[in-house]
């Protein structure tokens, strides 16, 4: 298992070196979006309209943070379950999205897009939300404020601890890992 220190934006050259099971420390800008925001983005793409965030080379983190307590940059901010975004991810990957951060396995369609376009899926530890919030050094809402915790936020992260869960070659840490430890 290799260790990588990466900065966004992610290029295809870097993405193909990432293998399922590798650990990553990610820095740079990451955008947050969940179910509702994804639907809006995909609808805009279908209508040929401009998006409120860039996609090319970018990473989206599936998170709805807890409210920010006084004196902190952000509240607890761990990943939400990724499969709910599976209907939308292929369209975003097709339009330049290179990385996704969440938790839990992605389905076939997403994997096919990842292989075709060169994108990677990282897993963050669900429920380690206070710890993860320490990697986030700046936050601003950039779209869909009406969605509250589900708004699109622009985060600046440093050394966000991740694992490459599913890579651009079809590698899958869930399948491989569970097989290895089943009895």
């Amino acid at each position, binding site marked *: 298992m290799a260790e990588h220190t990466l900065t966004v934006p992610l290029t295809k050259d870097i993405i193909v070196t990432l293998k399922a099971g590798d*650990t990553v420390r990610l820095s740079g800008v990451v955008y947050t979006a969940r179910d509702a925001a994804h639907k809006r983005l995909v609808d805009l793409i279908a209508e040929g309209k401009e998006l409120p965030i860039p996609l090319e080379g970018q990473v989206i983190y599936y998170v*709805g943070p807890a*409210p*920010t307590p006084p004196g902190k940059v952000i509240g607890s901010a761990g990943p939400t379950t990724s499969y709910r975004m599976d209907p939308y991810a292929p369209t975003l990957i097709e339009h330049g999205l290179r990385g996704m951060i969440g938790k839990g396995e992605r389905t076939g369609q997403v994997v096919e897009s990842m292989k075709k376009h060169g994108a990677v899926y990282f897993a963050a530890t669900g429920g380690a939300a206070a710890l993860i919030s320490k990697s986030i050094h700046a936050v601003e809402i950039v779209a869909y404020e009406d969605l509250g915790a589900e708004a699109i936020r622009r985060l600046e992260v440093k050394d966000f601890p991740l694992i490459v869960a599913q890579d651009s070659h079809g590698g899958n840490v869930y399948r491989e*890992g569970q097989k290895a430890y089943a009895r």
Partner: protein
Amino acid sequence: MREIKASAITEAIARLSMEANYELEDDVQKSLEAAYEREESPAGKEVLRQILENSKIARTERMPICQDTGLAILFVEMGQDVHVVGGDFETAVDAGVRKGYTDGYLRKSVLADPVRGGNTGDNTPAIVHLRIVPGDKLAIYVVPKGGGSENMSKIAMMKPADGLEGVKRFVTESVRTASGNPCPPIVVGVGIGGSFERCAYLAKKALLRPIGSVHADPFYTDLEKELLMLVNDTGVGPMGLGGRVTALAVHVETAPRHIASFPVAVNMNCHAARHKYVEL
């Protein structure tokens, strides 16, 4: 008759809502520490290390363990000699949730209409399971329940002929197919018997038992032990990354059933097995 003020109920629930989100109970904390020692998979061990570090940060800084601070589910046993004064019981409960989720900077995750949405803005209404019991105490469990684990829960109206083997198959398959989605290592609550809705209630109630406790009936103690082994043999592991610790515990709760029915329910709790208790 013993009077309990509605305001006291509100205050207690507000406090418990916050505490449950910042601090794991001792049995859960110890179980996670033991899991870290026991886990053989390096990826799984790293997940557990992060979970333990997170627990410390959350407790020390009074931040939520998980950003999903959950639906507010309450199990209440009200003594029949209790007289609630100064307000309605249900209003007092919701006021407590509102206060806890506001003062505690907890996430508001409740939509008013299940189809049309509309965040209620204060994480109410609470979901209350109430029993009236002898005595003059008011016992309250506050159980913040996140969506991820809840979404992996299952219920089956089995045939009586499916029997114990059917239960084992259903529970094991539910855990296997859930994979990493409920944030393992999980606590598995199994309900057997009752009616359709009572069975689901049993499965959730089973989550409240301390980790390390066993069923009072040796027949079901054995089932719990075997289910824990079967579930851990799926190899799902922490966060589904593969490992030997998929579940911290399996608890079974049972109830009498109809001669023709065999309901079995599985309610999963993530590793942030959050609940706090008070007796007023």
